[in-house]
């Protein structure tokens, strides 16, 4: 597992980020994105600091963080692989692609490999619907997945 920063460090970095962004209109989502960028997830220890900085209750901040699929409570693996499971990809066999990837990686959706190499997630549309089935590996888009591409992806996340 990646090293977790100490909670005092989280608090001070969070305070800096809150200070930097709180002048925006509606600053909470930009702050949460920045925190996830910084720590790889939104640490529990950051929530009271945000609440304090934005004059919100902790419950309100918790409610927002947990509403959105993107914000993680735990750090992800070194790679994040998202497989599109929406209709256009379904029509081109995304279900079989997912089954194959799960089998090769030995994990299910929303799981991280035990060696911390990769987190697998479903995604509902990457806007690559004329290049189905599609995936996103660490922010890079991949279309028309076939066995060869799947094996390349698996080799990459394992390396």
């Amino acid at each position, binding site marked *: 597992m990646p090293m977790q920063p100490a909670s005092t460090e989280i608090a001070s970095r969070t305070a800096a980020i809150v200070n930097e962004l709180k002048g925006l209109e509606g600053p909470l989502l930009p702050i949460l994105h920045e925190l996830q960028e910084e720590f790889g997830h939104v640490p529990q220890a950051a929530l009271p600091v945000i609440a304090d900085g934005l004059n919100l209750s902790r419950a309100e901040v918790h409610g927002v963080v947990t509403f*959105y699929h*993107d914000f993680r409570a735990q750090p992800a693996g070194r790679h994040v692989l998202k497989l599109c499971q929406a209709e256009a990809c379904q029509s081109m066999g995304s279900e079989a692609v997912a089954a194959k990837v799960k089998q090769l990686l030995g994990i299910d959706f929303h799981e991280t490999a035990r060696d911390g190499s990769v987190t697998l997630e479903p995604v509902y549309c990457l806007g690559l619907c004329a290049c189905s089935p599609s995936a996103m590996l660490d922010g890079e*888009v991949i279309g028309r997945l076939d066995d060869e591409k799947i094996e390349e992806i698996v080799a990459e996340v394992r390396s």
Partner: protein
Amino acid sequence: MIPRIYVPADSGALALGAEKVAKAIEKELKERGVEAKIVRNGSRGAYFLEPMVEVATAEGRVAYGPVKPSDVKSLFDSGFLKGGHHKRWLGAPDKIPFLAKQTRLTFARCGIIDPLSLDSYKSHGGLNGLHNAVAMAPADIVSQVTESGLRGRGGAGFPTGIKWKTVLDTKSDQKYIVCNADEGDSATFADRMIMEGDPFVLIEGMAIAGIATGATKGFVYIRSEYPHAVATMNKAVAIARKAGVLGANVLGSPNAFDMEIRVGAGAYVCGEETSLLNSLEGKRGVVRAKPPLPAIQGLFGQPTVINNVISLASVPIIMDKGAAYYKDFGMGRSRGTIPIQIAGNVKHGGLFETAFGLTLGEIVDEIGGGTASGRPVKAVQVGGPLGAYFPRALFDTPFDYEEFAKRDGLIGHAGITVFDDTADMMKQARFAMEFCAIESCGKCTPCRIGSTRGMEVLDKVAAGIEAEKNLALVTDLCNTMKFGSLCALGGFTPYPVMSSITHFPEDFKPAPTRVAAE
């Protein structure tokens, strides 16, 4: 003149290897000591030909595609910088049938220009609309947009001009323009293509909306699944600001308008306008009850125009060529053009901008060329995950808001997913319920709980447990969801479910009977 080579940096092209192609071209240029400029354009939308590389020759552009990195060496050997013949040669891009048959108004520049060159934008007619708008009274701009017949391209089809008029007529010190770029519907990618391929047209459209309604601040809310669109829009806004297109004096006029790019966080429901406003405000993306309309009390309680990317990006051409020009395209109450996105199991997938009125059959069979798998088309879902599944029997339906409504469907954001005969419509109906359960914001009980119950009941049908009784229950549940939900997520999930049951009853027969029938 240094030769120009166009290699798209559109996400769809990147997903098919455009980056590797660009690198291979760069390497080959270096090795051969040839000087050329590589322009990273958007996509023209013919994804079956991507990555489509173009070269500018004395006789105009010549396209090659789909280009693989391994083709690059032989392209140079064939003299492709002068348009030489090669197995990937496609000729003039605007003569490629898929592109030649289109009417490109909103997407006129997409895939042609360098998306981040304001000069290139201007030399292709960009900013003409905004120049006209700054010289007009706000009410006149609004009436132009109203007269053009432009309706919300996000899916609801509400007249854009009427929305703008409400905001114009509502007094307030602060008003907002919010662009809904949370394009979460499967089969849709028009918003993404515009943001990646012609971002200035959206900025121009938003500036016009601001001037027309008295709003000085704009937000583009882009889904996080579109990192390339976010990056391009951020760059484009900075360029526009520096050039005085945005700022305290838009194009030197006394009108102020500036904007920010915001990123969503993976919630499908935030594509619903009131959820989106809550999300922008930093709240849970929960749907708001209407009234009050966002046009009266929208973002931070202020009058707000909230429009889809394509609606806003269609405004510059209306302000440039006039309402009558735009209105002249289309049929009935569906005026202008619509970028149809042909997706899924289809041979010629991509974006096809055309006047309203083509039939579904023409779109799927003629333009799309049938399925990619070569098997017969069984069903097409029109309008994303909340749209109805249409069987071949309804392929004579013209692409028009009202015509689709008459047949219990919707055109939505104009995405079409094609399925071949291996599709199991009971599975698709169950997925619609499952998706609703995953993405429900939780505000309305029929959506929050009904979706899960819907899945369970459909599972019973699949298992052959009192199929008839349970299908009647699903129908009743759909009725409750339709009329008991505030927004389209709970309200429209019944469309894919009920259309599957109505048009493909054979797929809902209990398993033993299905086996016996075969």
